[in-house]
């Protein structure tokens, strides 16, 4: 508890401003990077409303929407993870583990392969539905059936059942994939999480969700702090623990599900960002949540920019970078939590 003094509001504000600056800088950098070389001067010209047609197209129509989508989905995954960790009171909880990712993956695969004539653009909605279904399944299975205890959501059981359901859905997805003659690539690149092909339409699709859900997440901050005190204490403070948990989880899943429609499943962002945020500004959710969002946004944008600039014109999906960084960190984290 002595350490909390380190985490002052001023420090949080400073770090927030720093991250905002980093996001801005990275965004400008990303505007200038791509398979086609665009000199800095030309990019600046375009931003000032001048510049030639091609550069304008490259910068404003191809790169800018990607950056917006990367920032938004990163923030949403991070917020989702932070809330799940708060509710489940387990530092290892994240959208990947709680059935959301697996549900979305299975739904997307089924949608792509079982219904080849599907209306274009339907894929993200299928994934969204799958994310909710996966989560609902986990919730349903980890509830106490027939019991009458108020503690309907036991954290450890939730996490374990989440792992189990993810394994089950993964097996089902394999069953579908192995019968697919082709189109495998399309399904897989979506599952890996990528911002490739994000356009203004997609950005516009994610934006309303972000505008509603991100503030909603911030409003949950106090509830999350109370929940973190433990069940008995929270109850004595007059919080209806069951309802509060359910509401926070619903917001968290909605965030992850909406983010999936923008960029697929960006592995481990929902885990990594909240933890880094906790290291930086402490565990109070009013500070933790906004910093985690900024971190998530920067993380995904950096991964996408790297993926674009590394081997042009090949695009390495951002989700691969986030998983390759996130999974080892997860293992490290596991070692530390005693």
């Amino acid at each position, binding site marked *: 508890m002595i350490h909390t003094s380190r985490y002052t509001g001023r420090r949080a504000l400073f770090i927030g401003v720093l991250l905002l600056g980093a996001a801005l800088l990275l965004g400008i950098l990303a505007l200038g990077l791509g398979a086609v070389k665009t000199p800095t001067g030309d990019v600046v010209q375009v931003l000032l409303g001048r510049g030639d047609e091609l550069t304008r197209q490259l910068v404003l129509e*191809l790169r800018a929407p990607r950056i917006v989508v990367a920032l938004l989905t990163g923030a949403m995954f991070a917020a989702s993870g932070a809330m799940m960790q708060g509710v489940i009171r387990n530092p290892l909880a994240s959208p990947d583990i709680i059935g959301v990712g697996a549900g979305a993956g299975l739904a997307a695969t089924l949608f792509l392969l079982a219904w080849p004539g599907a209306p274009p*653009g339907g894929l993200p909605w299928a994934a969204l539905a799958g994310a909710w279904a996966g989560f609902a399944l986990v919730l349903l299975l980890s509830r106490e059936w027939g019991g009458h205890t108020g503690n309907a959501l036991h954290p450890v059981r939730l996490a374990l059942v989440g792992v189990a359901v993810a394994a089950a859905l993964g097996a089902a997805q394999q069953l579908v994939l192995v019968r697919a003659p082709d189109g495998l690539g*399309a399904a897989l690149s979506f599952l890996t999480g990528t911002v490739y092909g994000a356009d203004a339409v997609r950005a516009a699709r994610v934006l309303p969700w972000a505008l509603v859900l991100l503030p909603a997440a911030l409003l949950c901050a106090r509830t999350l702090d109370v929940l973190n005190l433990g069940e008995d204490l929270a109850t004595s403070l007059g919080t209806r623990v069951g309802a509060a948990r359910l509401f926070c989880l619903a917001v968290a899943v909605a965030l992850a599900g909406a983010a999936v429609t923008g960029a697929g499943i960006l592995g481990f962002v929902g885990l990594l960002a909240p933890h880094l945020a906790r290291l930086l500004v402490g565990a109070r959710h009013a500070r933790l949540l906004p910093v985690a969002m900024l971190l998530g946004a920067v993380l995904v944008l950096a991964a996408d920019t790297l993926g674009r600039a590394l081997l042009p*014109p090949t695009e390495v999906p951002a989700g691969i970078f986030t998983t390759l960084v996130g999974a080892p960190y997860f293992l490290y984290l596991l070692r530390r939590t005693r």
Partner: protein
Amino acid sequence: MHKNILVLSAFTLLSVAAGLTVGHERGTLDLKTPARRVVALEYSFLDTLVALGVKPVGAALGLQGGDRGAPPYLAPRVKAIPATGSRAQPSLELIAASRPDLILADAFVHQDTYPQLARIAPTAAFQSRRGSLDDLNAQTLAIGQLVGREAAAKRLLADQRALINKARAFAKKGAPSFVAAVVTPRSLTVHTRESFVGSFLEDLGRKNQLPVKDGQTQYEVALEGLVALNPQTLVLFTAPDETPITDAWKKNPLWQKIAAVQRGRVYQFNRDNWTRGRGPLALRLMVAETIQSRLLQDAAPGADFRD
């Protein structure tokens, strides 16, 4: 007389002014003038364009994603065309930079990128990857219209029809049915009547043994399954740079029990040429190879097509 010519030319002028309208999988495309700068995102489109004498300004020739590249018959003819990413992941930036006035995309593979492609240039989507022979022929005509070479496209199709009719004459009446399969180092996938190669060979006059199975136009079998099917004629599609799984199966005495092996009627074709081109040039090559291999006559395969 003069009047007639005048009226005629007025019509021509009118039709040019009205431009051209071509339907495709995602709607219809209105072009004021035939397209000059075309980007092709599938090999079948590239094949068609080359056959029509149009040089694309860009094509998904990239080897990213482990794409095996243009099929051997096509590769020497598309060397000079700039690559704009791979088929699975076309580079939108490179496509935009090549300033196309028409993009040809696959209706399935590029269904998610279609809106973005359409914003760069008018984009037509066709069923190439999952297209049947009829689909592909319809595309040849549509692409011909889009690039203003409808007559040439019609000629290609007529030639192809004639060639196929000629090939049919070779087909032996009452020859036993065949099983066609794509073979990789780890798997053998049989192609039914409704698959592209399966239906093509039927079109040439030989009967495919396998109907569609539970909606799957192609499915995988093991050696035991192949022995159970016991085909009288076996057509294998392999890649020369791979060791097909059938090489391992040949060591098993069961292989010798397959009727096609006993009859010496196992034919082998280049998988890349047969399954990845799928344009007029590829089809011409496929008909020629089918005749040369003596598959149609139900005779022992020629030297180049022996397994």
